[in-house]
């Protein structure tokens, strides 16, 4: 192929080259799709394998729900009755531990999601991600595999909480379980993506403690997770009982609606429009994934 046929007119040779390019690209596309699936599987498998070998994370995933359900939930259970006030003002028709239970699932998912998202920083700075970045896998596939892996592990940690359902007096029917797991998957995916977005914006790495205190806990406590915004009260009344800023923050927090959707699935109680939860979760998943992808392409 020394000097591409100089006797041909320039236009014709360019056309020839263009059409052969298309052919090559088509062949490559097929190959690259299959290659991509293998690569996504590899990255997913790596995340899952790492998680199973990480005792610390597993211990956290078991101890956290035990503390919240068995100690905080059962401990606060007697104080969560409307009758204390003489009249029925709290119309949540569930005990506190039942009310708390879906939120603990969300909490466990949250910790695990963000934890695996933080590992993106390590992967990027110290090598492992570099090795994938110089591979022929497109960035979108790499990120998708990574987030899917984190999602799977988080989903598993969320499901761990379900084994405590008995202690929380929550009976889960198979149908509830299917809907619940679907919602849990969406929550895990959205939060892992969010974690990656935040992790990408952090220049100096200070460890997981910062994430826990600055991201996870504020989002969690501001999501009507451990106390209800009374649905029997009007919006104005709620703002009298609680400070206005608190109500505003809770209503702005997308996690509020995610946890609300989980309550719908597991204890059939919702404070907000039931369509809101799934819609917000899908929107969050897509939005955060796209932002994460944009950041990721830049690196």
């Amino acid at each position, binding site marked *: 192929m020394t000097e591409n046929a100089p006797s041909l007119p320039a236009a014709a040779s360019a056309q020839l080259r263009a059409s052969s390019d298309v052919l090559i690209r088509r062949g490559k596309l097929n190959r690259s799709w299959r290659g991509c699936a293998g690569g996504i599987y590899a990255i997913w498998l790596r995340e899952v394998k790492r998680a199973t070998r990480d005792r610390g994370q597993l211990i956290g995933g078991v101890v956290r729900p035990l503390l919240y359900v068995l100690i905080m939930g059962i401990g606060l259970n007697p104080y969560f009755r409307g009758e204390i006030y003489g009249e029925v003002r709290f119309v949540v028709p569930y005990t506190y531990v039942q009310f708390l239970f879906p939120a603990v699932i969300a909490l466990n998912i949250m910790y695990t999601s963000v934890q695996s998202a933080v590992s993106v920083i390590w992967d990027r700075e110290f090598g492992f991600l*570099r090795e994938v970045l110089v591979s022929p896998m497109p960035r979108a596939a790499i990120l998708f595999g990574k987030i899917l892996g984190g999602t799977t592990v988080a989903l598993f940690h969320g499901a761990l909480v379900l084994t405590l359902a008995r202690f929380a007096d929550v009976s889960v029917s198979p149908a509830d379980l299917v809907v619940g797991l679907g919602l849990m998957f969406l929550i895990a995916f959205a939060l892992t993506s969010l974690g990656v977005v935040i992790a990408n914006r952090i220049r100096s790495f200070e460890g997981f403690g910062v994430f826990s205190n600055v991201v996870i806990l504020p989002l969690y406590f501001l999501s009507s997770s451990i106390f209800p915004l009374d649905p029997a009260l009007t919006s104005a009344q709620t703002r009298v009982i609680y400070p206005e800023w608190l109500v505003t923050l809770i209503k702005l927090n997308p996690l509020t609606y995610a946890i609300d959707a989980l309550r719908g699935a597991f204890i059939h109680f919702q404070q907000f429009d039931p369509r809101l939860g799934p819609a917000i979760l899908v929107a969050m998943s897509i939005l955060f994934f796209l932002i994460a992808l944009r950041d990721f392409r830049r690196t």
Partner: protein
Amino acid sequence: MSASPAPAVEIDHISKRYGRTVALDEVTFSVQCGDVFALLGPNGAGKTTLLHILCTILRPDSGTARIGGIDVRANPLGARRSLGVVFQEPSLDDRLTVAENLEFHGLVYGVPKAVRRARIDEMLDLVELEKWRDTLVRTLSSGMKRRLEVARALVHDSRILFLDEPTAGLDAQSRERMWQYLRNARQERELTVIVTTHYIEEVENCDRVCIIDGGRILADDTPAALKARHGHALVRLAARDEMASAEIISAHPEIARRNGEEIVLRSSGDAFTEELLQRFGTRIRRLVIEEPSLESVFLALTGRELRDQAAGARERTYEFGKRGGEHTR
């Protein structure tokens, strides 16, 4: 299909700056297929930046780079397909086993299952790690990790291997073995090797050496040609008495250097040595002729020795991870 294949790597006026610092300044060179090409230079010379541009994780500000004829900017995925990379910092997953790391790599590069299995066995054999197949990588020594990384870079159909300081921090024996593995690998398949290093003695066996400093190429030639052009033979001698020493030095004031009892003269060739011996032969007790080395070439071109630098931000964070940040991984 053609008589003269495209060069494995072509770099044409590549520039890259970080803020005000010029990391690469109009760098141009090409590497022929099958060559072992060494980039030699002190830390901060721009070697790693250049490699990162070639493996498409860094974009150059200007200029073009082609891998096997494929432009790395226009078609990064295509360019990566033929690359095997060993980074300066270890990039293995230390929670996975040796075999799992290789399997992961094969999957990511889309190597078909049968080929993958065979290639992994072959590569473990090549770097003598088959016994550690199911060991977690975190328990391996640093030399073994480096070997595993070389093996990994060869699991897919890599035709061009980039090695960024592959032997840094290894003892002499491990370094020698590493080169042996590379030589063996080159017998198995057509492989172009581009290696950065600051161990000068390793460069002697490369086909071409490119000396780079401050983002510019100072020389690019075979080791022999570099030595012939920029190197000097040294004559080290010890005179019988103090008077003879003084006379020898005063006869060659420009090229002589006194080093205790020893006198070091920069030789311009055999004629110089002969003349020296004719004139002072009887008054010299001991004389050694040192052939020109790449060390002296480097010294002549850059005016200094290869230096090391203080730890940067990345090293510090890495240290943090080693100390206790580990649980965050």
